[in-house]
Each structure stands twice: as C-alpha cells, then as structure tokens.
C-alpha cells in the first residue's frame, strides 16, 4: 500500500510505504482491510498533508535520479517530475562536483606557486570550472515529465575534468 502527498512546508512530495497488514497484525492483532488502511492513514499521513491519495508501484519513477524533483501536479495519481526542480537539482549537484575540483586546483595552485611554475594553466582550468554551470543555468525549462528536456539537463550537468 503506497500513498503520496505534498508537504505544505516545502511543496515536496512524500511517498508513504506501508508495512504489510500481516506485520502490523502481529502487534495490533487481527485487522480487517478497512481497519488496516485506516491505521496507516491515521498514523502516516500528517493532518496538513496536501492531496493524499493511493498510488500503485508503477506510478513511481523507475529510478531516483530526480527524486527531489518529484511532485504531484497532474490529476492522475502518478508521480510527476517538475522540470524546474530537476534543473535546480542537477545544478546543485554540478556545483558540488565543481567545488571538489576547485579545491583540488587550489592545492595545485599553491604547489605551483611555491615551485614558481606557470599558473595560467591552473587559472584557465579554474575559470572553466566556474563557467561550467552557465549552460545549464541558462537552459529555459518549464512543465513536467519531458524526457527530452531531462536528457538536456543530464547532458549539461555532466562535469568532464
């Protein structure tokens, strides 16, 4: 039994995965199906949850690459992917990767400076890294579930060192 709802505090999507009825009955004793579902709803769905509704397994994306961009937008009981959130998610991941590389170059820069080597190569690499988020940042996106846009986001979020 799975239920999705939207959190009011951050507009994110939560997916409730209930324990099997038999597992809960070991604690609470025998339950009818209605009592089981009522227990899950009462215990697991916050009072301020937005539009909680049952979903099936195939209503959830096959992978969690864009998990933080999941949203409940369309009327159908399926998990949608918000393209704006997906872009922001990949942009943040790209920045994290870039920061790691920049830290590495900072170390190289200090070593080269101590050794009196040419610093321009390192400077150029660091500039490239600073500019790496530009294309993705400038990519215009809107709507949901567009695989072509998602592919573009993936491609622009790739960091090749």
């Amino acid at each position, binding site marked *: 039994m799975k239920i999705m709802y939207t*959190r009011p505090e951050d507009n*994110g999507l*939560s*997916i*409730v*995965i*209930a*324990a099997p009825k038999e*597992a*809960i009955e*070991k*604690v*609470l004793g025998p339950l009818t199906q209605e009592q089981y579902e009522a*227990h*899950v709803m009462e*215990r*697991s769905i916050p009072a301020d949850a937005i539009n909680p509704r049952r979903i099936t*397994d195939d209503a*959830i*994306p*096959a*992978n*969690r*690459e864009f*998990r*933080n961009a999941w949203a409940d937008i369309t009327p159908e009981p399926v998990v949608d992917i918000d393209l704006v959130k997906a872009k922001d998610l990949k942009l943040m991941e790209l920045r*994290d990767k870039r920061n790691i590389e920049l830290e590495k170059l900072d170390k190289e820069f200090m070593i080269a400076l101590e050794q009196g080597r040419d610093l321009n190569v390192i400077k150029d690499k660091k500039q490239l890294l600073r500019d790496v988020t530009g294309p993705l940042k400038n990519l215009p996106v809107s709507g949901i579930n567009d695989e072509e846009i998602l592919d573009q986001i993936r491609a622009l979020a790739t960091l090749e060192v």
Partner: protein
Amino acid sequence: MTITNTTLASATFNGNGATTAFATGFQFIANADLQVIVTSALGVETVKTITTHYTVTGAGNSGGGTVTFLVAPATGEKVNIRSNITLDQQTDYVEGGSFSAATHETALDKLTKAVQQVKEITDRSIKLPIANQSITTQAATPTASYVLRMNSANTAVEWASGASIGLTGAATVKDTEFTVTDDSDTTKKLVFEASGISTATTRTLTVPNASGTIALTSDLSSYQPLDTELTAIAGLTSAADKGIQFTGAGTAGVYDLTTAGKALLDDADASAQRTTLGLGTIATQAANNVTITGGSVTGITDITLADGGTGASLADPNADRIMFWDDSAGQVTWLTAGSNLTITGTTLDAASVGTNTFGTIAVSGQSDVVADSSTDTLTLVAGSGMTITTDAGTDTITLVSSGGVSAATQSEQETASSTSVYVSPGRQQFHPSAAKFWLLVTNTAGTFALTSSYNITSITDGATGLYSVTIATDMSASTYCVVSDITGTDTASLGAGDGGYGAKIYTRAVGTYNVQCVNYSGSAFDAIHSYQVGFGDQ
C-alpha cells in the same frame, strides 16, 4: 310583358313550423292571380286567403315571386301555389278607336296564363293514351254509388254498380270476387294498408271459424293458437329480476329472481354450481366416507374415546408433554416429566439417580480408579505445590499450583525484577531489554521497500536519502534509542578519513522519527540497505 316562364305551378313544400316564405316558381301577372293551398297531414286541403294568411311579392317578374305566410305552416303540412286567374276577357276595343300595344299585350299575357293554368289542371287529370281516340269517354247519366268503368267491349266508359264488380256495401268484398293469384313471385305481398285509419279507429279482419279453412296457412302457422296457459302468462306484468311460474291450472304469476339465484341458474353444470355456492369438493363426498385434505376442523364437540378421539379438549402445552389417561379424573390430559426425567426430541430419558456417572477414572500410565458401588467416593489429594479447594455452594473444585509460575504482566515485564513469573510470547516485548521495533528498508535499483519490520506502520520517502519511520504502537516517551546502520555501493567511502556511511536519526517523537542517510562526504544519498532497531519504554 312577355310570358317566358313555362313553369305551371310551384313545387310542393313541406312545412316545418319556421319557414314562412315560399317561391312561386312561375310567372304571374297580379297578386290576386295566385291560389295558395295548404294540405294537412291527413290530406285535407285548405285554400288560404291573401292578406289574411299570406302576402305576395314579385308580380310580373319572369322568375316568379314569393308567397310569405303570416304564420309558418306546421310540420307535416304541405304548401302548393298555383295560378288562379279569372277566366274572362275585360279588354274592350272600340271600332275606330286607339289600339294600345300595352293593352293588347296584357290581354295576350292573361290569355297565355289562362292556357298555362288549364294545362296545369289537365296535366293532373286522368287521360287516355293518344292511340285510344276511338274510345267514347262520354258516360250516361250517373247513378248513385256507381263506379266508372270500361264497358265489356272496351270501347266506352260506363257506370257500374258495386255489386256488379263484387262490392257489397261500402266495406264488403265478396269472397267469390276477391282473389289473389299466385304468379310464383315470392316477393309479392297482400297488404292491408291501414296508414289512413284515424287514431282510435277500430278495423276488424274476420277470418273463418274452426270449421272453415284458412287459405293463408303459410302465414298463420307461425302464430300460436289461443292457449289457456299462454294467456295466463301473457297476462303477467314484466319487471326486472322476475321469473314466471304457474300458480295453478291455467294461472301464472311472477316471483323474485335474486342475484344469488341467477348466479346459480346460469352455471353450466353441478360443478360450477358448487363453485358458486362455495361448497368445495367436500359436497360430493359420501356421508360415511369423508376425506379432508389440509385445512382444519374447528368448533366441533370433543370426539369420544369410543369414536377414536380423546374425549377432551386439550390446550397446546407449549412444552414437551406426554398425553395419558388420568383414571382418577376419568379423562385424557398432559403428563409432565418429573425430576430426573427429560424429553429430548421424541425420546424420554431418565437421568441416573444414585448410579455412577463414570464407573472408571483412568490416567495414562496409572492404574484405573474404579467405582466399587454407586455410593463410592472419589477423593482428590493435592500433591506438592498444589492446592485443592472445593465450593459446595457452586459444586466446584479448584486446583491451584501453590508454588508454580504464572505469565508475567506488562508491568512485571517492564519492571523486569520478578523471578517467579514466566515470559509469554505476547508480552516479551515489554521487557526493557527487548526491541520495541525494528525494520529493514531496501533500495533495489531505485525502488524503495519496507522489506521486513516489527511494530512499524510505514516509512515515508521524503527526498533523496531522507525518510521517516512511523511506529505502529507509540513509545511512552521520545527518549528511546534507535540503533541504525546502512550500506551503500560507494566503496570509496570505506576507510576514508572523514568517515563512512551514516544514518542520522533526528526529530524523534513517540510515534515517529526521521532518518537521513549520508555518504562519506556528508551528502544525502539513498542507501541500499537501511536497518534500525528501537529500544525503550513502550
């Protein structure tokens, strides 16, 4: 004027009590030249008088004029209008005097109208065919009561006495002279026309008496001869719902035909009549052989014993009872089962009284205890660690282990100090050392699942590396302990200086807590396996 209209007289009009104006249909010179005749329903003609009964318009018109009655002729009366000018000649021409064309034409008009007036009369007269010009129509001097007829040579008319043509008196026809011949034409009829007979006038048709012979038997045979019984019936007065019956020789009367009686009369047979009477099939059974199928017989006198009955009326006892003959009372009545007797279904059982309920008491591996008599006593002896108590009032024997163990209560489990009670499966989880909940969350190729758990309602996937856990039965406080571990696929984290995978437990409440999985760099990630076990007071 000229006379171009050749119509001789008006049509015959039927009075209706409303119409007063009637067209002449023919041309006339002066109003006084008309004769207006009204014929009554009985055929009596009355000549009406101008001004007194009618007025005239349209004199001289070629199309004729109109006669208007002061009182409309009644229904049944007929109206005829004819020309009736005076047949004279009043125009006087003086020798050598003037010859007025108008005066001359007027005289010619009158002459023409006189001719038309005569023609109208002659047209209604009896005439001979033009080929019979040799017949002499001049008869001799008339004789009273004679009739005009052709002579035997058929050459002239003559007067003939009634007797000579078979008429005796005014209303008698001799039988020798009155013959109707049969020309084999079955459509011909001999009709005595009575339409002209005045109301209340009696006419008698006399036929021969019984000694004579009636020639027209074909007609009279369909009439019943005079009969005393029929005359009696004919004298009755008919009315609704009356039947006819003879009340004596030659006398008859009527009697009432009721609705019920008629319903029986029109039934086709006895079976239908029984149905009408509501008798049912029992009405056809013999008095000594009656069969009743279904239904009930009530209100009868008690059937005696000699006749196969009980001789008494018994009420439904609403309980299992036995019918028996109470000789002291001299009647049949209900017998009630007394103490130690029970009626079950159709069986009367007697409970054992003063006999062994169990003759032998057996214990596996032990010798049988056998009752020696119906009053033998079985004595129970409490062994070590056992107490036996009896209650004579409730007929109970209680066996209690005086030195044994009982299942620990939740409180005893939570206190965790008793050494004299045992832990039962249903309460072992209340011991402080026991896990209150546990779960395994798996992430298989991106699909989250609560693979196995205890006392967990659900997990809620909130974001990458972040989920919450809902406990089925709340902990008593949020100060419980969660032991957690996770696994991932990033082997690079193993042995790394800033640590391996970790699962942070935070925002614990009595029924929920959050889990955030982080990798070696502190970033949230989806663990492959995630384990938690909870300890604390519940």
